[in-house]
């Protein structure tokens, strides 16, 4: 008996029970479809997180002024005024520190002629663009001279530039921040949203001294970001900076830190790890439905073997050998599962496209996930088809013939 003949027998047998065959296949269709769609959503999220982490600079550390408890009242982060630009300069002296960017932040309603826009004002130094790996789109960034002179200049994020100036170039124009006229000297490129969804482009950057003295009226800073030479150095620098700052802030043993440190490398690893876990989780939930689909195949094949016992007896009387019966039933199961696999691929792609279209989630269906889902479906067919097929082939001819 050759393959095409066995396949024809299998197809004909399935055709005689069209509705049943289709319903059985449906289980696999949904299983394969959801595996593909879920893996697509998972790896889409993974890629998005990777892109965001890359945009933040993964070897960077963030130091923020910490909270303090005074008479039982705990101020939030930033409530302490001990972090200064001198701290930043001291940190810059440490080995393996590539760049340091002290900053502070305020919010203000910004005006340009008839329009206005509420946004964040960041006081920064020239190294800010290096630490954030954030290039300029046009013009120039804040220079050392601007910082020394507390100049009335600013650089716009893309969102602010668009909201205040539309399509015209803001270079050389003057905007008003809290009653202070400020000349626009540059515009940054688009950076996108952070991992937690805030728009990084919705900000104005001014010399740190300008924001300290002329906008907020303070002498301390709120934040120091720094770029380490590599990931390992960033982990080592955490300890060194901690020691350095405690010493500079004259903290005694037992006193809590008056600053907080975040390691973006650590954050990156955590996020990447959780994205991977997320993908696995989605994938395994979907695999369960594929497994259920496989059990559906086995169930129907077992019913079919019992129902067709007499037919199997007739075939044996006519000269069918064990392997002829085995292959017929195994092929029936395989046809069901692979047909389900093919349809499931389309369902999965369609589902992934629909999710990508109707939600903000990015979806990436990789050829590998399609191939894996399809092969898994085939495996399910063999695995769950083998038992019923063996059962059919091992029937004794006279018992099968007598069965009514």
């Amino acid at each position, binding site marked *: 008996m050759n393959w095409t003949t066995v396949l024809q027998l299998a197809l004909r047998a399935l055709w005689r029970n069209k509705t049943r065959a289709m319903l059985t296949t449906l289980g696999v269709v949904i299983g394969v479809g959801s595996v593909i769609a879920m893996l697509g959503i998972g790896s889409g999220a993974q890629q998005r997180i990777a892109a965001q982490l890359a945009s933040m600079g993964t070897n960077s550390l963030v130091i923020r002024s910490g909270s303090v408890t005074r008479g039982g009242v705990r101020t939030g982060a930033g409530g302490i005024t001990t972090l200064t630009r001198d701290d930043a300069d001291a940190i810059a002296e440490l080995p393996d520190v590539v760049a340091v960017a002290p900053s502070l932040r305020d919010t203000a309603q910004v005006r340009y002629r008839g329009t206005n826009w509420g946004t964040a004002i960041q006081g920064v130094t020239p190294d800010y663009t290096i630490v954030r790996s954030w290039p300029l789109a046009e013009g120039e960034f804040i220079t050392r001279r601007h910082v020394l002179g507390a100049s009335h200049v600013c650089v716009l994020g893309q969102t602010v530039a668009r909201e205040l100036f539309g399509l015209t170039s803001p270079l050389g124009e003057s905007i008003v921040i809290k009653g202070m006229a400020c000349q626009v000297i540059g515009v940054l490129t688009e950076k996108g949203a952070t991992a937690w969804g805030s728009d990084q482009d919705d900000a104005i950057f001014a010399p740190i001294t300008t924001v300290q003295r002329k906008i907020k009226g303070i002498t301390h800073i709120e934040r120091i970001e720094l770029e380490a030479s590599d990931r390992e150095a960033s982990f080592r620098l955490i300890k060194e900076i901690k020691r350095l700052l405690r010493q500079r802030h004259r903290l005694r043993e037992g006193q809590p830190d008056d600053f907080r440190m975040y390691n973006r490398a650590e954050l990156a690893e955590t996020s990447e790890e959780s994205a991977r876990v997320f993908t696995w989780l989605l994938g395994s939930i979907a695999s369960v439905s594929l497994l259920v689909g496989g059990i559906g195949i086995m169930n129907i094949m077992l019913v079919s073997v019992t129902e067709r016992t007499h037919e199997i007896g*007739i075939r044996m*009387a006519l*000269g069918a050998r064990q392997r002829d019966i085995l292959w017929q039933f195994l092929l029936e199961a395989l046809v069901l599962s692979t047909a389900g696999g093919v349809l499931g691929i389309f369902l999965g792609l369609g589902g992934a496209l629909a999710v990508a279209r109707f939600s903000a989630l990015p979806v990436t269906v990789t050829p590998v996930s399609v191939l894996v889902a399809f092969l898994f479906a085939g495996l399910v067919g063999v695995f769950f088809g083998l038992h019923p097929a063996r059962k059919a082939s091992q029937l004794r001819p*006279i018992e099968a*013939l007598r069965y009514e």
Partner: protein
Amino acid sequence: MNAAPLLQIRDLQKAYVLDGVTIQALRDIDLNVEPGEFVAIMGPSGSGKSTLMYILGCLDVPDAGNYQLHGQDITRMDGDQLATLRNREIGFVFQNFNLLPRTSALENVETPLIYAGIGKTERRKKARATLERMGLGERLYHLPNQLSGGQAQRVAIARALVTQPSLLLADEPTGNVDTATSAEIMTLLDELNRQEGLTIVLITHEQEVAKHARRRLFLRDGRLEMQA
């Protein structure tokens, strides 16, 4: 004359267990069937007819004794060898036709050729020719439930003959049809035996049917007796 019998049975025994009771279905059976013979095996129900028929048809194996078909010792064969032997040497005609359900007459007749490994075109040709010989040229694509009892049994005979077997085993072939159809089927078997030299072993409990055979044997309590 050809000295070798087509079928040679010596001292055959078969018992089976039913509800914990061992029943000796066949005892000390000796039987020779020469090529071209038409033998009827008669007996009341429970006499062991069906058991003998299954063993003759290589669907079951004896507990003891010797059975040679066309010079081949079937007691030494495994399941697949028996399947091949059934396919090549034996054509079955059953009381309840045993056609494959929801399968056309043509495909039913093709089935043994599939297991013989014959290609599709030749299969079709042979199956069609055999059905036409049975006068069923108009019924090729009918399903079993669209055929009368006589037509169904003729499809079954066509299916038994399409492989050109050396032995036709008919188990109560007229058990499920009316008297007129019964006569028609027996005439067909007579013709096949006389004109084509087909060896037939017929199992029946009806005297009328058994009369068509040229030799009649009687099975009683598992023992085979000659009958005048």
